[in-house]
């Protein structure tokens, strides 16, 4: 995270109503010598006004940690927060973050798309080949036949070859790791989906196994067990968090606690599908 050097003070001025004097955004230079602002606020419990203390960069650093719903709520707080929370990059980051997707390209038709990133927002694009059957695909991707049919609005098992591709539900989050997804409106599913191309797509997908190449089997076991003890989870979950944190245990733990909070809110606000 580090110090925020540049502050976009002029952008802030556009947001703040000229008559308001409660919002005085202080610029911050790296040196503690007196800045260009005459009234310097001493950092003290006496001067308690978050609006006065927070710049756009700091706010970005905070909002970056929020899951999509909380980011959306932040946009309803005040003008400054709305300006920051509505930035496409902020929304994309919040959307990507739980699954460690590297990039999401394309623009959805409405901001609603960014509102949550449950797995059903994603789908794998499978280009149909001769001999493909729904049952065969279900087996290959470890999903249920019903799941494929529902996603593609299929009435029967036949007639899939009039289509160029099928969308496959994502059940293994590891597939999203470090991937690039494309927001598309799928004609068959009749909704917008973040599509993952596993093969023949425009982007080379990084195999998540390379993340583990750094570990020896024994070393990995040791780290996993320690992580598992601290987080009190099963091996698979610890493995998942460790692999996308790139061997960084502190990052793994932070992501885990963040996801736990996300899960808690998910349960409160939505019916688990």
């Amino acid at each position, binding site marked *: *995270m*580090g*110090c925020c050097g540049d502050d976009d003070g002029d952008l802030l001025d556009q947001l703040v*109503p000229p008559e*308001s004097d*409660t*919002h005085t955004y202080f610029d911050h230079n*790296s*040196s*503690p010598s007196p800045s260009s602002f005459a009234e*310097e*606020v*001493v*950092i*003290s*419990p006496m001067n*308690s006004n*978050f*609006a006065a*203390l927070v710049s756009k960069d*700091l706010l970005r*650093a*905070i*909002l970056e*940690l*929020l*899951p999509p*719903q*909380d980011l*959306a*709520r*932040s*946009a*309803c*707080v*005040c*003008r400054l927060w*709305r300006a920051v929370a509505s930035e496409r990059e902020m929304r994309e980051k919040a959307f990507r973050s739980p699954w460690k997707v590297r990039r999401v390209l394309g623009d959805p038709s409405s901001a*609603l798309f960014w*509102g949550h990133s449950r797995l059903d927002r994603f789908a794998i694009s499978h280009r149909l080949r001769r001999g493909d059957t729904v049952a065969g695909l279900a087996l290959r991707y470890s999903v249920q036949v019903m799941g494929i049919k529902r996603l593609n609005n299929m009435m029967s098992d036949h007639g899939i070859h009039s289509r160029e591709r099928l969308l496959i539900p994502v059940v293994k989050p590891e597939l999203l790791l470090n991937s690039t997804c494309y927001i598309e409106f799928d004609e068959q599913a009749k*909704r917008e989906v973040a599509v993952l191309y596993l093969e023949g797509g425009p982007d080379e997908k990084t195999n998540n196994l390379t993340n583990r190449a*750094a570990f020896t089997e*024994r*070393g990995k076991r*040791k*780290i996993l067990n*320690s*992580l598992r003890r*601290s987080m009190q989870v099963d091996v698979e979950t610890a493995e998942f968090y460790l692999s996308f944190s*790139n*061997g960084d*245990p*502190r990052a793994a*733990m*932070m992501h885990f*606690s963040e996801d736990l*909070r996300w899960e*808690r*809110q998910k349960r409160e*606000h939505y019916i688990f599908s």
Partner: protein
Amino acid sequence: MGKTIKLISGDGEMFEVEEAVAFQSNIIKSLADEDNADDCIPLPRVDSQILSKVLEFCRKHANSPSVHTKFAAIPSELCPKHDGSAAGASSSESSSAHSETCRACYDAVMKLVQWDLEFVKVDLDLIHHLLKAANYLDIEDLMFMAVEGAANAIRGNNPEEIRKLFDLENDFTPEEEKEILKEYSWLDDPFEP
């Protein structure tokens, strides 16, 4: 024994701390390097109450790897197991890079993270000041945790609650309010597509 640095808060109180503690702040570090005769560094923008809290954090982090350090990059000197004894380590460990499978380091890092998370479970007022102080003094780890603490306060709350917590004014115009209502109506709808 390490060298000490004297810091003077905005309200005139003096804090004397070890270099390793004070140098968590990149600002203090660079100021101290400027060959200060009496090693007395004034910090006019931070008052004593906040500074003491900041130093509490720095003391805890003085001999730990930074929050962003990957395991493989932790130097042996910071490992609790190798405290002091450099030689005699296993052949795979160099003096500058630590083994990424060291359990002692692992547990130490985990403990520190938990301490950090508790440290920022304080009222939002204090978080604001820690955030600003960390920014002003350029203390990376404190910045990281204060930001996490602020995000914690936002998570799970609706806009009105957030406004109250952060002492923010609803400065939207009526037109903007309408726009927001339209754009974010789905927030209250648990069955959105």
